[in-house]
């Protein structure tokens, strides 16, 4: 007798999430499995949708500022920077140079803290607990530094239209320099502990291949794109703020796998430190707020787009103004959404265990995807 194998019957459906620890948030991925192999993966979004775009249509420009700290809570300052940048472009307010430097210093610190958290959490996903504690120890110093000037530890709301809310102190400057020294000393330790570890390498090498062609098709940005050999960084390709004045490199790896994305982020940390050091050296004196910022920001009729490079990639804001105190439309282009979309394609035919390391290497922050 011939036994016909019904594939449908043999497939196993597995929900990864919404409470899976390695999705780092409420993301659900429906996996259709054939044994240990993934036949299809379908991300299901919307569990933490908070209507950030709609809120922008109901609040005045200044009232929308706190929202920016909450779209992507791990690189809140980049989002702050993007929003104030967009409104400043629309209204023609020019922040003083000192404010621009402070913005870049704090944003790069925020990028470091985001990468450190990602580093710890990624290795934790793959089963290594200790590096997580070390990276959190380092990250804690950044949080303390940023808390001392912004007043919050995670969901910063520090930039204002035309400047920043508070000047930085000498303590902050010495603290930042000391921290950079410390992190420079610790990065080789991370390398010995993780980057050179054979178990780690075996789990990330040649896993989650994103071809440059696929990356372009899906609009992947950030370290995930640079891990596929494409040199694209908003800070260089569409420079804003004081980035043209500082000297830094864009690390690129062409392995296209999770290991390349990992290495890109580790190298980026060094570049961020270089940017901070140069900005601290060049920090001009002067006010931190533009002299004439109207109490009620009312941009003229029109629209504008402003993009920044966050820790996860290209984040852009499109604002349409109808000349009133409230935006007519605010559109947020978040990097995580595009970076996650590619997951369905790259995980097809791979092993279930690799899904974790692929997903982790994309550095997803779910609130930013759902927003």
């Amino acid at each position: 007798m011939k036994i016909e194998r019904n594939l449908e019957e043999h497939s196993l459906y597995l929900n990864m999430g919404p409470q899976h620890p390695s999705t780092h948030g409420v993301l659900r991925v429906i996996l259709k499995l054939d044994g240990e192999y993934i036949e299809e993966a379908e991300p299901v979004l919307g569990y933490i949708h908070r209507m950030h775009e709609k809120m922008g249509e109901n609040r005045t420009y200044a009232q929308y500022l706190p929202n920016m700290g909450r779209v992507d809570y791990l690189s809140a300052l980049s989002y702050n920077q993007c929003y104030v940048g967009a409104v400043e472009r629309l209204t023609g307010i020019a922040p003083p140079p000192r404010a621009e430097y402070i913005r870049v210093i704090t944003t790069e610190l925020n990028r470091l803290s985001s990468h450190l958290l990602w580093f710890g959490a990624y290795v934790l996903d793959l089963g290594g607990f200790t590096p997580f504690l070390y990276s959190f120890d380092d990250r804690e110093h950044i949080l303390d530094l940023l808390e001392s000037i912004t007043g919050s530890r995670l969901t910063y709301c520090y930039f204002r239209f035309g400047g920043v809310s508070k000047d930085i102190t000498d303590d902050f400057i010495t603290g930042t320099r000391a921290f950079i020294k410390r992190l420079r000393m610790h990065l080789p330790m991370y390398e010995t502990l993780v980057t050179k570890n054979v178990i780690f390498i075996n789990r990330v090498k040649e896993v989650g291949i994103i071809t440059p062609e696929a990356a372009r098709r899906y609009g992947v940005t950030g370290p995930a794109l640079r891990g596929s050999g494409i040199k694209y960084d908003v800070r260089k390709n569409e420079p804003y703020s004081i980035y043209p004045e500082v000297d830094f490199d864009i690390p690129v790896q062409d392995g296209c796998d999770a290991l390349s994305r990992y290495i890109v982020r580790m190298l980026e940390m060094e570049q961020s430190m270089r940017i901070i050091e140069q900005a601290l050296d060049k920090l001009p004196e002067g006010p931190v707020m533009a002299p004439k910022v109207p109490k009620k920001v009312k941009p003229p009729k029109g629209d504008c787009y402003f993009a920044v490079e966050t820790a996860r990639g290209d984040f852009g804001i499109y604002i349409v103004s109808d000349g009133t105190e409230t935006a007519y439309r605010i559109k947020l282009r978040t990097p995580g959404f595009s970076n996650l979309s590619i997951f369905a394609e790259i995980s097809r035919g791979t092993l279930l265990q690799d899904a974790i390391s692929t997903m982790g290497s994309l550095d997803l922050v779910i609130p930013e995807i759902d927003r």
Partner: protein
Amino acid sequence: MSYFGEIYTGAVSLIAGLGVTGKALFQPTVTVQYPWETIDITPTFRGHIELVTDEETGNFKCICCGLCQLNCPSHCISIKSSKPEGAKKKALDSYMLNFTTCSLCGTCVEGCPADAIKFSDDYNLAGFSREEFYFDLVKRAREEK
């Protein structure tokens, strides 16, 4: 790489890793035992807002203009004020802060024309019901006195 070669490099990388963690064993502790030990919070910490009293007169600095109520993105402030008999200025009857929806953004503090509100350094907040976080700041300030 040969089978034994792999075992060798694997063992070396593991021992190198163990060396790092071993060193950490002899380094000073960085954590504190929270309820028993606490660390100082920075002066810039943003706790829930509280009313500022005028040192000289002992009254609240608030001039009851209502700007904070208007500016708050989360609509969590509602103030009631009245003009007492014979007085020239309005005085606060109640200043309700719904702390459950406050995002500690600071819009109210920055927008206040009389510098009448500031952030407190109160971070030990826990409660059993939502109502415990509807603060009447007038009452709280009086109780503290």
